[in-house]
């Protein structure tokens, strides 16, 4: 058994403690992890894609009602959340750079700030959800959307059933996104702990890189969710 683990090493070098035995060398392991994360993100694109498809169909069918519903969610909070996530992407990319250049303190700080920004995002989301709950805009038995004017069509009111479809998609899409954020926070808290213990080096910091890729992806999803959900028809 011991012989097998040494197969593939050249020149009798010690193998890196993080090198898994089925890889021949660290670069192969790094490349595999990176490709694995990218392929996983491709599956996530399709996962959210189904929801974007449903959204596209109904937005075309019920543009006025969707506009009315969209106007009732707080675009300022949405824009703030977008800015929060953009800042967190910056801190992530700086964290990766810190890991590459052996700046342990900076790495830990950047990971920490990323998590704080992530929590801020979720906090703002929670406020939005609370508002929707209080306004009876949560789909289900107590949903109510009466006498809400359609933007740009004075005198016409939105169809509550169609508005409920908007809110269904709103909650499922942002909810799924928030779930991904929570998972991201879990991943980053693990990264934070590892970084704190000094486990990342310029030779090996793959988890930071691929964790970063995941976080950026979640940011990109929000970059699309924001205009699609919050800014359908805001003209006065």
């Amino acid at each position, binding site marked *: 058994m011991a012989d097998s683990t040494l197969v593939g090493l050249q020149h009798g070098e010690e193998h890196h403690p993080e090198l898994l035995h089925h890889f021949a060398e660290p670069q192969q392991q790094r*490349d595999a992890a*990176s*490709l694995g994360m*990218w*392929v996983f*993100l*491709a599956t996530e*694109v*399709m996962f959210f*894609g*189904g929801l*974007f*498809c449903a959204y*596209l*169909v109904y937005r*075309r*069918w019920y543009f006025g009602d969707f506009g009315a519903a969209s106007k009732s969610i707080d*675009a300022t909070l949405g*824009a703030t959340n*977008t*800015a929060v996530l*953009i*800042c967190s*992407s*910056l801190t*992530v*990319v*700086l964290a990766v*750079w810190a890991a590459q250049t052996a700046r342990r303190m900076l790495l830990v700080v950047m990971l920490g700030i990323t998590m704080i920004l992530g929590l801020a995002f979720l906090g703002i989301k929670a406020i939005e959800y609370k508002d929707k709950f209080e306004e009876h805009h949560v789909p289900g038995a107590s949903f109510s959307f009466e006498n809400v004017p359609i933007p740009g069509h004075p005198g016409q009111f939105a169809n509550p059933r169609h508005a409920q479809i908007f809110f269904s998609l709103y909650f499922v899409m942002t909810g799924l996104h928030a779930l991904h954020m929570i998972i991201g926070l879990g991943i980053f808290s693990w990264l934070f702990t590892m970084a704190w213990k000094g486990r990342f080096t310029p030779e090996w910091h793959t988890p930071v890189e691929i964790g*970063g*890729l995941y976080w*950026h*992806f979640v*940011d*990109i999803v929000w*970059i*699309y969710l*924001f*205009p*699609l959900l*919050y*800014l*359908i*028809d*805001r*003209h*006065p």
Partner: protein
Amino acid sequence: MYFGIWAALLVGTFVTYKAAFIELGPFNAAVALGIATIKATLVALFFMHVWHASEKLTKLVVIAAVFFLLLLLGLTMSDYATRPWS
């Protein structure tokens, strides 16, 4: 360089937000989605390091994901968009 991209992203967000309140008719959606696409591309190319990726494979995975998403959206819309003609 990262800070430059970050600034561009924030500017893009601000412009998207403000533009939504201006009456542009059907172009509102185009502007909003267009800026969103630029922002997403910037994040992918520079924050996710696709621009400097050593391998074409990374770019291929990204393109494939986008391609199949557009396929889903586009071919589904081929039904919905042509239903009124039937």
